[in-house]
């Protein structure tokens, strides 16, 4: 495993602390911007399908749906271009930057580790293993829930966007034109886009829980890693 | 088999030459008839077959009852709206929903707009060519045509120049050699009796009516958003009314009401000055042709419709007559109950469906729709290339509905006969007027022409009822009530776990009922018995023949290979096969 930088020091209680530089600045920046964008997307998306109670008065006095949809689209652009940027970083960044996109699918040992992690979460293993990057189970769920999920949301989202942007707009040419026929009709694309939002919500719940838990349980830094970039091992 | 007597008193003889008419054109949907003619070309046996089935009753299972109107409306685009209305009534009946008076008025206006439209289009575009020889119109003298037209009506489009222009266009059309829809017609047949002038006048009105019919349905567009297939909702009507406040332009407002009003006025005028005079003029040349009575002198049925009092579907509230006449006993009108299991039943012994016990009928609440396409053992040809059907076996996609075991005729004539014997002046007076004008006895009513005449009179009645309900709507608005929907039970969570209901209308072609069972907010069973299912029904286990078959018996054909007389009589029912099989 290629380690960018190594750092030794004293931890509390006089124990040795190992620290590795895992997440480079662009990844960290992307992570938090991305997380924020997704929160905005999920909240606004929810209200696009189930709007807030109506406003009275003149239509020209309000722009509630317009604003919600605008926020969705603005966050969507951040999300889409952030994702593209993240893909770019997978090429130029360090080893960990690629974990989101490639699974060592044919690596038996890796699968063994996946099952080990699974047992750990099921309280069947007494002690966690330590990983410098993602643990294999995390990587697996990141790949399926996040990478594929994000791709699906982006493709369907841009297809829906192209419907409003009209024929001629790049989103229409690149996405709407084939995504709608693929699903059969626009209504189905809405339905699946919305379902994918829920899949994302579930992913985020598990992800955040796991991050906090591991931070406490596995005696290695996680949350701060996503802030500072350094992974600290506490013993 | 040679000669045979049916339970309902008709004699059948299928020993003569078998003539097949398939497709029967100028109707809705797909109908086939086979008849046997004797050596004088008189029809001695008739077999009527619905040749399509879509399975809507099967498709409706498990769906939201509030959506059912949209599905059932697609049973037919010709009598568009009547199934939707019947459907929302069935759901309202099941759930005990009361609709506002305005919704009742609007629904009645829409139903009457359908009547006028459907009857008018039927007369001119589906039926007229059975009586009118288009080619003979070329020989007419435009000046005498004008005189004829002016003698029967003060409709303005009747100058000699008007008819001359029209005749010239017609000439050019015929000379082009491309006769379009008039190709291979039975022109010149001795069965056509109109003089050339009457033919020319009728052709002119064929075209005028084609232009005018699209105006009538604008009423559906205003209240229902479009036609064919306007929108309805369970609990009332979706078109909110706003005649006072801000935003009224986004609802039914004064301008919309005026538009409806003006269409109603023009419609009344067209029916009065074009349709009814044409009908009487044409009939006067065919008074001698009194075939096609069939079941009409024996057994007729009407559920009644057009509630004057919102939510009251009893006979006293219904402006169209309700009741049943059987065995030709015109002194007694029986009460009809749609939920009594002993009254309405459907049989499938001769239909392409399967029951556990096909010797018995099923009330629609217990109805079953399971297709079973098998040909009788005496059928000729193959499964996918039928030459002759075997009426001894299964032979139609229509079920056979019966009222207390009787095959019944339904439709305008049935309604008028019942209204007549109930001595309701709205129906009796116009009939007496026509009989007197044509100088024919009451029995002339029981015929192909009687059916066609009743439809014309009913069209006029319906046009006037639109005015009545539009005035009622305005009066109610004036009194401060602009409610159009009752949403108390809109949410399925307010419904009982299980319920059942029946909705009915008199569709243009006759008695229409939808029976619904709702369980856990979903449709558990949905059964429709449709006017043309009654009229076009195949035989039942007791051997009763339906109205189409009965009406063809005894009719002489001018030419055995030209089904003009068969078309005439079948068309007088205005068959709708998509409806009948659904």
């Amino acid at each position: 495993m290629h380690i960018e930088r190594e750092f030794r020091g004293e931890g509390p209680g006089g124990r040795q602390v190992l620290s590795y530089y895992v997440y480079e600045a662009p990844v960290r920046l992307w992570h938090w911007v991305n997380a924020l964008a997704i929160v905005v997307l999920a909240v606004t998306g929810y209200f696009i399908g189930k709007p807030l109670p109506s406003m009275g008065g003149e239509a020209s006095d309000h722009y509630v749906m317009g604003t919600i949809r605008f926020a969705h689209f603005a966050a969507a652009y951040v999300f889409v271009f952030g994702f593209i940027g993240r893909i770019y970083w997978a090429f130029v960044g360090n080893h960990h930057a690629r974990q989101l996109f490639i699974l060592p699918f044919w690596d038996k040992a890796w699968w063994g580790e996946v099952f080990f992690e699974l047992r750990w979460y099921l309280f069947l293993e007494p002690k966690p293993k330590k990983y410098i990057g993602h643990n294999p189970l995390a990587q697996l769920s990141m790949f399926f829930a996040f990478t594929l999920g994000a791709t699906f949301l982006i493709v369907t989202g841009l297809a829906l966007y192209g419907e409003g942007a009209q024929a001629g707009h790049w989103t229409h040419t690149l996405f709407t034109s084939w995504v709608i026929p693929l699903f059969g009709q626009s209504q189905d694309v809405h339905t699946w886009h919305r379902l994918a939002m829920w899949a994302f919500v579930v992913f985020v719940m598990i992800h955040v829980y796991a991050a906090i838990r591991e931070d406490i349980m596995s005696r290695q830094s996680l949350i701060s890693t996503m802030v500072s970039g350094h992974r600290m091992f506490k013993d | 088999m040679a000669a045979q007597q049916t339970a309902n008193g008709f004699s059948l003889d299928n020993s003569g030459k078998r003539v097949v008419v398939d497709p029967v054109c100028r109707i809705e949907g797909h109908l086939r008839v086979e008849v046997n003619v004797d050596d004088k070309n008189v029809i001695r046996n008739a077999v009527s077959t619905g040749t399509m089935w879509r399975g809507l009753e099967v498709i409706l299972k498990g769906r939201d009852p509030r959506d059912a109107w949209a599905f059932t409306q697609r049973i037919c685009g010709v009598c568009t709206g009547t199934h939707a209305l019947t459907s929302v009534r069935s759901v309202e009946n099941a759930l005990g929903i009361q609709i506002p008076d305005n919704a009742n008025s609007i629904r009645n206006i829409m139903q009457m707009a359908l009547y006028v439209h459907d009857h008018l289009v039927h007369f001119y575009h589906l039926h007229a060519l059975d009586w009118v020889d288009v080619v003979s119109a070329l020989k007419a003298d435009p000046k005498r045509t004008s005189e004829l037209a002016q003698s029967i009506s003060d409709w303005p489009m009747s100058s000699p120049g008007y008819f001359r222009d029209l005749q010239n266009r017609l000439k050019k059309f015929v000379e082009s050699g491309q006769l379009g829809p008039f190709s291979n017609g039975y022109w010149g047949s001795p069965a056509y009796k109109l003089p050339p002038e009457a033919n020319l006048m009728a052709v002119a009105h064929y075209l005028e009516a084609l232009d005018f019919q699209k105006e009538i349905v604008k009423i559906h567009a205003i209240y229902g958003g479009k036609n064919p297939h306007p929108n309805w909702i369970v609990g009332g009507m979706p078109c909110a009314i706003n005649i006072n406040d801000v935003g009224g332009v986004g609802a039914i407002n004064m301008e919309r009401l005026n538009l409806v009003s003006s269409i109603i006025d023009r419609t009344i005028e067209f029916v009065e000055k074009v349709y009814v005079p044409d009908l009487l003029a044409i009939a006067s040349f065919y008074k001698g042709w009194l075939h096609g009575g069939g079941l009409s002198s024996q057994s007729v049925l009407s559920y009644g419709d057009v509630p004057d009092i919102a939510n009251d579907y009893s006979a006293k509230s219904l402006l169209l007559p309700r009741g049943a006449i059987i065995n030709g006993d015109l002194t007694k009108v029986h009460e009809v109950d749609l939920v009594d299991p002993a009254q309405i039943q459907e049989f499938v012994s001769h239909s392409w469906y399967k029951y556990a016990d096909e010797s018995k009928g099923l009330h629609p609440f217990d109805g079953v729709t399971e297709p079973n396409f098998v040909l009788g053992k005496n059928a000729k040809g193959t499964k996918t290339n039928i030459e002759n059907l075997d009426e001894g076996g299964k032979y139609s996609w229509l079920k056979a509905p019966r009222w207390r075991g009787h095959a019944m005729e339904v439709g305008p004539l049935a309604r008028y006969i019942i209204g007549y014997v109930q001595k309701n002046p709205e129906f009796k007076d116009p009939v007496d007027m026509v009989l007197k004008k044509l100088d024919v006895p009451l029995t002339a009513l029981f015929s192909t022409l009687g059916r066609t005449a009743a439809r014309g009179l009913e069209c006029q009645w319906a046009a006037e009822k639109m005015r009545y309900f539009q005035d009622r709507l305005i009066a109610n608005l004036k009194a401060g009530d602009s409610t159009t929907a009752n949403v108390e039970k809109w949410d399925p969570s307010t419904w009982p776990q299980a319920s059942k209901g029946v909705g009915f209308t008199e569709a243009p072609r006759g008695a229409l009922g939808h029976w619904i069972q709702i369980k856990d907010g979903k449709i558990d069973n949905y059964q429709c018995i449709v006017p043309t299912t009654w009229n076009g029904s195949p035989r039942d286990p007791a051997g009763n023949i339906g109205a189409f078959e009965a009406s063809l018996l005894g009719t002489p054909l001018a030419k055995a290979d030209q089904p003009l007389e068969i078309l005439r009589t079948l068309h007088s029912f205005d068959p709708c096969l998509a409806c009948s099989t659904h």
Partner: protein
Amino acid sequence: MTETFYDVLRRQGISRRSFMKFCSLTATSLGLAPAFAPKIAHALENKPRTPVIWLHGLECTCCSESFIRSAHPLAKDVVLSMLSLDYDDTLMAAAGHQAEAILDEIKKKYKGNYILAVEGNPPLNEDGMFCFQGGKPFVEKLKYMAADCKAIIAWGSCASWGCVQAAKPNPTRATPVHKVITDKPVIKVPGCPPIAEVMTGVVTYMLTFERLPELDRQGRPKMFYGQRIHDKCYRRPHFDAGQFVEGWDDEAARRGYCLYKMGCKGPTTYNACSTTRWNGGVSFPIQSGHGCIGCSEDGFWDKGSFYDRITDIKQFGIESNADKVGMAVAGGVGAAIAAHAAVTALSRAKVKQGNASQEQKQGE
């Protein structure tokens, strides 16, 4: 009543001069001397009207009914002057074998030159006998007449997608035209029914410009099906403002607010209703207070209730939609997380205790 092709062009606003110009251009493009132009003109002026064979399968005839409502051009002018409606069982004078004879005649005489208009669709179950005509399955008639036609117009949602008879469980296996006829151009004009003027618009386009209209990927003319109802709905300002009808006949309904919350499918439906409108421009569904039910879309019958905005997902059973599935899963996962956290805390406490006693022992 009988107009030539030239008359039709004139009616469409094309002048004598541009007609003659069109003829000389045609002459040059065919490599003919300019002297041929008048001959071409003569031929066009006297050209026979294009024959149309209009077949009916499983359907409700609403498409025919809609067609005759056309105001511009008038249905009578289309049928009698612009084309030659040689076969249409709903309108034609003849019946039985006299009617069927016309099919063979047109098929031979106008091989490759007639338009086949199809209303409704063929059922394929029961060897096609859920719809038969002349004793034979409709699908045979359709294939027979399609073989020699120039192009097919698939009228309405029946012919285009399957429509109501193809709604689940589609007991007759009603099948849209393009799935049965694969070797001819099929122009889909969906809608239940389509708008009259859209129908006649498509036909007159073909006659006037002598070519098929430009189609989108799903085979619909772009000019009428390129945008959603929602894109040009006059209630759109209320949508953007967040002003919705919340229940039938409420204050918002009386002011004509947006019908989105009542299940309006305008945002997902491609059709011309909000612009062309219906019945001579008098109204369209939304204008009369009911949401769009998406009647021109593929499979619109099977998306759950017409009154739901978040529609059903059949794959998860009739009763589920994205929110129900999503909330159930999120709820389940939330509970699982809580349980997991509790167990974690518990075992951690145990481990700590263990550690503590060990340390104690060591201390001893």
